[in-house]
């Protein structure tokens, strides 16, 4: 059981957005995807989510091709947190989180309970009755994090659950960046497989079991954080001269630029 991609290629008018990319997200594993702007990180995420069709290669979810799942069944075990949301209607935060329960038939009482817990998990219980459109950017992003949490809250007969996140911490302050990492780690401990696009190398290093570094639509290198975050690799992919240290508490690599 895994979320697996094999030989993904995708071209858009002669530009290769993805070029022979393959990876496996295993249950309970946290994978972070890094790379300079335009390296194909978001494209990869969208292909994994079934939103874009690759020109060649395929994605399978729990040993079934992505296209063979009904949209509803797939949504019960695969959730996606986008970078931005277009929502411009005055739902309350609790109603937005409740939208995460759309693919389930678990009943209103049960769903309400899950919504309350999901909001609590993102430190947002005080947001429940507030109108979404009047929240700050960071609060909105937390509401959406709670929404995808609610979507894959409990184990499902459809199999292992997976969560894809596109720069989940981009609009968060330090405390909520930390909170997001805790939420993600917590999910992984429950057996959810996680793939996360992150820009901050140190943040990525702190939570990842496995790292993927992308460049021009290709996997530049993949491996444990200590293998990927090397001075020469960072110089090659990001064109930045960096010093690599060790985090004094966690022992994970620390990139100083």
């Amino acid at each position, binding site marked *: 059981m895994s979320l697996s991609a094999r030989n993904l290629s995708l071209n858009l008018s002669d530009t290769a957005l993805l070029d022979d990319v393959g990876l496996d997200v295993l249950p309970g594993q946290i994978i972070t995807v890094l790379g300079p702007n335009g390296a194909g990180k978001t494209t990869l995420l*969208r292909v994994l*989510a079934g939103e874009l069709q690759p020109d060649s290669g395929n994605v399978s979810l729990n040993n079934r091709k992505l296209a063979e799942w009904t*949209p509803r069944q797939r*949504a019960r075990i695969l959730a996606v947190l986008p970078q931005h949301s277009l*929502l411009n209607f005055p*739902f309350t935060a609790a109603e*937005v989180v409740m*939208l995460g329960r*759309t693919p389930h038939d678990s009943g209103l009482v049960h769903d309400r309970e899950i919504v309350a817990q999901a909001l609590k998990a993102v430190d947002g219980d005080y947001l429940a009755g507030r109108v979404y459109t009047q929240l700050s950017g960071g609060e909105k992003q937390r509401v959406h994090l709670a929404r995808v949490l609610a979507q894959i809250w409990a184990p499902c007969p459809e199999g292992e659950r997976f969560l894809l996140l596109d720069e989940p911490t981009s609009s968060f302050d330090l405390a909520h960046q930390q909170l997001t990492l805790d939420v993600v780690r917590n999910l992984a401990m429950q057996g959810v497989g996680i793939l996360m696009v992150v820009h901050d190398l140190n943040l990525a290093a702190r939570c990842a079991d496995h790292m993927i570094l992308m460049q021009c639509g290709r996997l530049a290198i993949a491996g444990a954080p200590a293998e990927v975050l090397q001075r020469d690799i960072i110089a090659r992919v990001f064109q930045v001269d960096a010093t690599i240290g060790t985090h004094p508490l966690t022992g994970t690599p620390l990139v100083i630029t």
Partner: protein
Amino acid sequence: MRWMLPSQLLTIMGVILLPLVLVGLMMGPVWIAPAEVLRAFGEHFGASPSSAGAQEGLILFAIRLPRVILAGLVGICLAVCGTAMQGLFRNPLADPSLIGVSSGASAGASLMIVLGGGALLQGGQAAGLSVVALGAFAGGFLAVVLVYRLATSAIGTSVATMLLAGIAISALAGALNSLFMFLADDEMLRRISLWQMGSLDAANWPRVWIAGLAVAMLLMLLPREANALNALLLGESEARHLGIAVDAVKRKLILLTAMAIGVSVAVAGTISFVGLIVPHIVRLLIGPDHRYLIPASAMAGAILLILADAAARVVVAPAELPAGILTALLGTPFFLSLLAQKRRVEVG
């Protein structure tokens, strides 16, 4: 932020609706007292018949009752389709005319008036619908199908392209409409402009049945998509990630809207602002959840149009105003005040 619970709003409107129908039946060039109305109903439905008040009975059952019911049905079509379009376009300022249905219908009706002239208008009737009404339905439906086709490619239907195609097709239909008006003589011109103002004065029972059928289909099929519409407000990708078959939902919404608005334009002409204003107001009152927004908008649309039509019959009595003028006259200031309020909230 929210004024009331959905159940409260539905109860209030339910309480208003019946007295309003009674008022609608009373008002007009011939004033019929409430007691008379009730007595006539008693007679009509089985109680001892009497010859007294036969004229009132005729006015009530041949003219006013179908008219009030038709006003309610058309109000439901316009308001519910407005709700669906605002949800689909994720824009609280959208309305059914965005996808070309109104201008297409106008062009269709004008063509029929110019082609047929007076003869067809008096003579040509099919199932209680004049040839003009059939032309309007065909024109509106054709415009929507064109818009939908233009916006649909192998990878799905683009809502943004649909918006642009809607503007283009509306412009084209507007040009055709102007061309037909240019070709028309004075009598035809007057008919065209009266038709475009929208009015319920041609109400009869066959029209009520046709509109009733459209409303029944609409209210049976659209509420099933309430969850999908809610998810669509997040954006199309997010709705897909939540397990919604987005393209199938879009096709269904567009076809239902084309059908219902086509029918409503055919039986009552183009009545503006109901499709825009009603969902907007209801959303302000009870929030954007489509599970409640659809039924509440349906009732509010019915109430607004029954009210506007009743007023249309009395403000310039013994003549009557086209109801479309009243909805726009009442709707525009209200809408502008909403916009001003929204600006204040955003600034303050």
